[in-house]
């Protein structure tokens, strides 16, 4: 916690959890997709489902998926620019279960190049957010650090190769987590780092053996 967490952030109102947090969840989902969004189907859960219109949560999610920041004054008009960009977005209410945070959202995204992903996250207060599921992998990360997300085969050495590339680039790993569904199957890994990951390192990681896809997640 520093003084700018108290005096700030500068944001579009009315609610840090239902508006600013929603923008950030959109930003994270966009980064996870890794390309511009062509179609977004969005399910809203709990308090998000009940109060999204009055808080502009829908506008904020659309703004976040277009890569805008939480203080972008275009947010109230984000549907117009989505329409112009032929970005199709629709909302419905869903029930993600009693255990889900009341401010939860699930995105079904299709990108301009045809990539798809399903992302679930929650806005946990004060504009802070957490992503809890990516393509059926239970994960947990918040976008506070630069990060890379890999989908890879669960093989010995797959992880070490990634971290060794980072270390040769002088990037320090702050935290990392690996998730897999079954031994030897597809696994997901999130590596949060102290320094941003540059283009060169990012490209090399994408070409490593066993790596199926890699995404860079860098919020401001």
């Amino acid at each position, binding site marked *: 916690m*520093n*003084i700018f967490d*108290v005096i700030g952030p500068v*944001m579009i*109102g009315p609610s840090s959890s239902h*508006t600013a947090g929603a923008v950030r969840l959109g930003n994270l989902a966009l980064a996870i997709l890794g390309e511009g969004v062509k179609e977004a189907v969005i399910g809203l859960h709990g308090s998000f489902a*009940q109060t999204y219109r009055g808080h502009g949560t829908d506008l904020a999610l659309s703004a976040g998926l277009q890569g805008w920041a939480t203080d972008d004054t275009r947010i109230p008009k984000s549907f117009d620019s989505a329409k112009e960009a032929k970005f199709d977005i629709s909302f419905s209410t869903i029930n993600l279960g009693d255990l889900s945070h009341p401010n939860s959202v699930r995105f079904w995204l299709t990108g301009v190049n045809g990539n798809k992903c399903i992302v679930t996250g929650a806005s946990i207060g*004060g504009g802070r957010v957490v992503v809890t599921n990516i393509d059926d992998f239970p994960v947990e990360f918040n976008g506070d650090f630069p990060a890379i997300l890999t989908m890879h085969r669960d093989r010995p050495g797959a992880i070490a190769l990634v971290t060794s590339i980072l270390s040769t680039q002088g990037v320090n790993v702050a935290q990392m987590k690996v998730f897999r569904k079954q031994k030897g199957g597809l696994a997901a890994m999130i590596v949060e780092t102290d320094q941003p990951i540059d283009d060169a390192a990012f490209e090399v990681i994408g070409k490593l053996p066993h790596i199926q896809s890699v995404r860079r997640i860098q919020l401001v």
Partner: protein
Amino acid sequence: MEEKLSLQEWIDLAETKKISFGDFCIDFQAKELEIDKKVLLERMEDMLHVMEQSVAIGLTGIASMGGLVGGNGKKVEVYRSESTDKSVVGSVMSKAIMIALAVGEANASMGRIVAAPTAGASGTLPAVLFSLAEARGFSMGELGKALIVAGAIGMVISSRASLSGAAGGCQAECGSAAAMAAGAAVELYGGSPEQVGQAVAITLKNMLGLVCDPVAGLVEVPCVKRNAGAAAQAMVAAEMALAGICSVIPVDEVIDAMAAVGNAMSCTLKETAQGGLAVSPTGILLANKLFAKVES
């Protein structure tokens, strides 16, 4: 768990160094953030500019997203301009009321605001700072320093209690905003570090127990008007502290009491819209109307 901060500790340090609480906070925060003091002040002045713009947005009289608030800042502006002897509270506080409402309404209509400490309570600090600035001609630099004092107070409250309505009720949002503004006001008027602490303690005592009960779960009713109330509480406490009045209960203990009250508060009174004004007959009626709109 992070270590709990102590406002009294910082006050004592400032008193021993014989510097104002504002100067202490600037030194301390610049060191903590590893940035130049000048940069820190500039960033605070940027925040002040955003706040000024929020006031302007609100005073256009725009309506909120949920349609429950809007146009009240403008009403006070008109009332003030008609004649000075119409004001019950005098020109400075009436200006503060106007600004608090305007920023609260800007927030509710998806305008750009500075969450200070939260979006719901974003009208309180601008109200106190700008109304006093008009009365006494404070510069942006002086207001920036006062804002750093406010931020430091907020950090202590956040570490010992909470700044969010969902965790601690509205005492944690509007109460904290008021306490921060009270400390800032004392700093602006040349009060001692000790007096800053007294103003914070008195404000929080006067707002202890305030529940968070937003109608339909929206940051509109009672939030916008509560900002005006919070600004007034801040000015009342600052006046007492500057006159040399002390809080019997020391400031850190008051903050801890606020944390305890927040924990004891029923969940229905912590932003869930299941208690208080939110479940008044009219509150329920309005919520049903708004939710029907969502369904259709």
